[in-house]
């Protein structure tokens, strides 16, 4: 904490913090304002006497109504939710077990395997979608939710594995040894002792995986083509930008509503999330 005169606290702490918070929240504000701004105001030129970019005098829900009624937005929300949840679940299960094995079991090439998993995470999606597209076509999964449910884990599992591996390593191994002496088999020690302690880590990995799947764009754009199969990020962009016409109102409404579930998930688990990032509770 900064010590000394009050002005110092303001200059070195509150002002930078304020600027930071402002720059983070401004895009959300812009989304929200655009969502409720009538078209007349929205397309008003900058030199018009009533031009007011940061405020609206006549808030309207037309854009939201338009979004929900004129597009398949509800369907997109449902698709996104389903795909993100399924991909997260698969990745979390694999990541937790793989992370546990890499952190705790002594086997040959464990270190090498860990590094190899990490390297797969570093392959950019913009390259990986090319071979993946071939596989998707081969298995006739294109334009189905499975195309994404099965491809998202390619980047989510390495991520979850590494996060969980780090977390399991912070849990003293004596806890498990003690459980095994107490009469638990390794799998029982894992389920009754280690996993409950690792809940913050598991939740953080889950939140991250969910957010990454929710926001994912490239795979969704490439692997899905019909409007009723699309996810929110792709659907909003492809259906509300027609040629060079941007339907700013519904576009921003879609972006705003689409970001709400993620925000809810974060705020709900924020406490766990912080402990997950900073290590486990000590015995």
């Amino acid at each position, binding site marked *: 904490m900064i010590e000394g005169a009050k002005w110092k606290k303001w200059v070195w702490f509150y002002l930078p913090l304020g600027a930071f918070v402002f720059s983070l929240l401004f895009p959300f504000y812009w989304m929200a304002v655009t969502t409720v701004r009538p078209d007349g105001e929205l397309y008003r030129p900058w030199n018009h006497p009533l031009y007011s970019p940061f405020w609206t005098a006549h808030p309207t829900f037309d854009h939201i109504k338009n979004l929900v009624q004129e597009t398949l937005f509800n369907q997109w929300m449902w698709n996104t939710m389903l795909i993100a949840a399924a991909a997260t679940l698969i990745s979390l299960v694999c990541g937790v077990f793989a992370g546990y094995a890499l952190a705790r079991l002594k086997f040959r090439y464990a270190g090498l395997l860990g590094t190899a998993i990490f390297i797969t995470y570093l392959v950019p999606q913009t390259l990986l979608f090319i071979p993946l597209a071939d596989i998707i076509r081969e298995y006739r999964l294109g334009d189905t939710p499975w195309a994404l449910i099965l491809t998202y884990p390619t980047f989510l599992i390495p991520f979850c594995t590494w996060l969980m591996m780090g977390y399991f390593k912070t849990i003293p191994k004596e806890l498990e040894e003690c459980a095994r*002496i107490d009469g638990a088999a390794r799998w029982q020690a894992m389920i009754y002792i280690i996993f409950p302690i690792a809940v913050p880590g598991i939740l953080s990995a889950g939140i991250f995986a969910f957010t990454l799947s929710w926001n994912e764009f490239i795979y969704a754009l490439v692997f899905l083509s019909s409007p009723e199969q699309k996810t929110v990020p792709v659907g909003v962009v492809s259906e509300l930008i027609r040629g060079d016409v941007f339907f700013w109102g519904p576009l921003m409404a879609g972006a705003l509503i689409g970001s709400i579930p993620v925000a809810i998930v974060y705020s709900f688990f924020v406490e766990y999330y912080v402990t997950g990032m900073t290590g486990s509770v000590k015995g």
Partner: protein
Amino acid sequence: MAKVLIRDLNKMYDEVHAVKNVNLAIGDREFVVLVGPSGCGKTTTLRMVAGLEDITSGQISIDGSVVNDLAPMDRDIAMVFQNYALYPHMSVHDNMAFGLKMRKFEKPEIERRVRQAADILGIQALLARKPRQLSGGQRQRVALGRAIVRNPRVFLFDEPLSNLDAALRVQMRVELKRLHERLETTAIYVTHDQVEAMTLGDRVVVMKDGVVQQVGAPLELYQRPANRFVAGFIGSPAMNFVSASVAAADGGLWFESPGLRLKVPPAKTDALRRYSGQRVVLGLRPETLRPANGADPAEYTFDSKVEVVEPLGSEILLNVRVGETPIVARVDPATRVKVHEAVRLAFDPAGVHCFDAASEAAI
């Protein structure tokens, strides 16, 4: 109620030979302490008994049956860890009940045993709490409670007191001793603290570099150390060592070192005769030294110069120098000596130890 037999036990890590040919027979209800500096293999030995480390070669048997390949859960042992290893997400009650639940005990029996253990350890009031709400001493008690509810054949302790502050450690040491007397269970206890080893153990095993140096009752180790390492490790302050040559003169044998000429005590004369003209290591315990008075025979006294005086109330530690050799003497608190003064020290010839300069074995 169990005998533990360790035969030719070895542990190899990739490059390190951590435990070398350890042989140990632990009797029923015996309290055996493994003691040694860190890295001496004592914890590894204990973990092999627990089944937490694989055995490279050798055999461990409990009550006559070989347990080498048994999982930890099937060995009927309980272990108390240095960091207590309490399950942080469970209450004290559940921590203690976990082992019994895993072993499918009936619920009333679990309750009865947890209550009983809590009564013995005085933690009845803490049963509903979580480990993080407990002090260090309370956590220690819960860890003990978790071990005793199971009523195992053998207790294993891995430095259980080293995370406690000094006052609490002394108190828990006494409680452990009392607990062992009450439960009459075989116990193996690992520590690096020789005071703990001496006060708790029926027998003490001193280890160094993976090798057992000596096994014996505490006083036996103190009075008849097998080698220089044991002599220096057991006893506080540590034994003084003086490198001296043995010379025959005036019809007797003498230790000679710069600033020091002492007669070899009669009890040692025969053993030291063959060292005549060679170097040996002379060992003098600080508590056998005292300021000389006129009555002390000259051949068992020597002159020294005081460098540091440490008054501890019940005693004074004098750090003196004889020739080049620093020596510590534990003397009566009434002794009046000042820094830089010369003082003549006398010792009890019966308390002299001698060690071979090369092998370091006791002579």
